[in-house]
């Protein structure tokens, strides 16, 4: 193929690639990250496979997309973190390094290589008590572009879902948010992201999508989805003793929040 000689075909190829990827992962289960009084909560729903992962002592990862692609990216992030942690120190392992020098360029290279399959994945990473903020998030998109967020972060199957989810999550001061409230907020944000992912057609204007979303009954979505799916929730918990702060929430911790949606 002589794509480089044909700028038009090249641009078209990239656009096709975007459509292809978005089509593949749009229905994926969203991931929600939100700070709370004792750290950061990451939440998603899934049938049974694990979708949230520990990267390093204070870094967690969630993703939407093809599980084998997510797995490759997860392993790359873990390799990089442990290499830096050993050769320098635990403190030197920062989310910025992993995103800027690791995942971002790797995903971009995969996206640009038009003769091979791109990474079918959008990745969210969370860092507890980083240098600049207590609750730092990054989203690395399927084309390698990355964005930084503070306090909370939402990741749907397609970028259109992100901002609707974010609206449902809007919290003034996450440092005062209890774990229970954080869980409940995160579930609602997940539900609207789920709703967008399952739309037959996404309106091209954001405002049209917003208008469509106003009447959505989130509790009803959750009630239906919880019949088939289980909640996976982890925390990066500041008060956890020892260096690793990552912990899976137990069924007992989730039950009070989930019960209110199951009725």
């Amino acid at each position, binding site marked *: 193929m002589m794509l480089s000689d044909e700028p038009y075909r090249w641009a078209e190829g990239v656009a096709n690639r975007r459509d292809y990827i978005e089509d593949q992962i749009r229905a994926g289960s969203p991931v929600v990250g939100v700070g709370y009084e004792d750290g950061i909560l990451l939440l998603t729903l899934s049938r049974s496979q*694990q979708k949230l992962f520990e990267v390093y002592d204070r870094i967690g990862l969630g993703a939407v997309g093809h599980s084998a692609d997510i797995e490759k990216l997860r392993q790359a992030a873990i390799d990089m973190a*442990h*290499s830096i942690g*050993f*050769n320098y120190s635990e403190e030197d392992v920062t989310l910025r390094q992993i995103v800027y020098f690791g995942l971002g360029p790797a995903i971009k290279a995969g996206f640009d290589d038009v003769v091979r399959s791109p990474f079918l994945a959008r990745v969210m990473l969370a860092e507890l008590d980083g240098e600049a903020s207590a609750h730092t998030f990054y989203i690395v998109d399927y084309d390698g572009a990355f964005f930084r967020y503070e306090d909370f972060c939402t990741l749907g199957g397609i970028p259109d879902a992100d901002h609707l989810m974010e609206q449902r999550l809007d919290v003034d001061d996450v440092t005062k948010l209890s774990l229970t409230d954080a869980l409940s907020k995160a579930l609602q944000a997940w539900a609207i992201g789920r709703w967008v992912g399952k739309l037959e057609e996404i309106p091209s204007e954001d405002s049209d999508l917003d208008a469509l979303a106003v009447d959505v009954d989130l509790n009803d979505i959750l009630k239906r989805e919880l019949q088939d799916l289980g909640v996976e929730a982890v925390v990066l918990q500041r008060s956890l*003793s020892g260096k*690793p702060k990552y912990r899976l929430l137990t069924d007992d911790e989730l039950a009070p929040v989930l019960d209110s949606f199951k009725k």
Partner: protein
Amino acid sequence: MSDGGDFVDLLRRDGYRFPGEGVVASGSRGDLPFHPTEGTTILAIRYRDGVLIAGDRRATAGNMVLYDRADKVINLDAYSVMAISGSPAVAFEIARVLEHSFQYYRRRQLQEMSLNAKLRRLSLLIKDNIPMAIQGIGAVIPIFATFDRKDACGKIYFYDALGAQFETTDFTTTGSGSPGIRGVMYYQDRWGDHKFADMARDEAVGMAMRLLDTAGEYDSATGRYERVADIFPTVKIITASGLEDIETETLRALHAEYVDGGPGA
């Protein structure tokens, strides 16, 4: 590409070399122009709630006291520690590699490394160090202690300089000061008021400090309580609820009771 979650593989891909790699075993320490840093007493006992592991704080080079705040009992994860005697340069490196290996494996393979695998990893690292050990400058003789959640009991393993691994059912001690207290430990466990296995935490901690003090009496390379700088030995316990450092204030109180006080004081 490695898919085994092996941290050492990852390090080697990055170009890392262990201290002993490339060292050809020849000569003996008699030829050495310098004194390597070493010396220690470390001990581990199984007491009522789990295992206790303790070490003195002195590092020596020949006749010289190099350091009085060495921590020879190193946390590897939430349930296991390694206590080191021998060359600290190699031992700390081994501990660092192990700590990262356990975490790396757990995160990458999405499961905890089994106890047997952890023991094997330590053994392999000691074997890698054989050339240094034969040179006489880098031998490491660690004790590995953990709480086995599967069997719900504390476990203690010790090694020789070539990497052979032994499990002890009651207690062990290694390092230059250990010959001075090995017999004491046997005597205490056999004919003392309480066997180690029946001791509550405070008594076990007090006993560990008595033993280290005894080791220091007969071995110049083992430090005792340092009065001027107020430095106590390192004492840790591992129980069903995990690894716990015994705080200085607790050590102070138990030192006063068991070492300074005690029968006949």
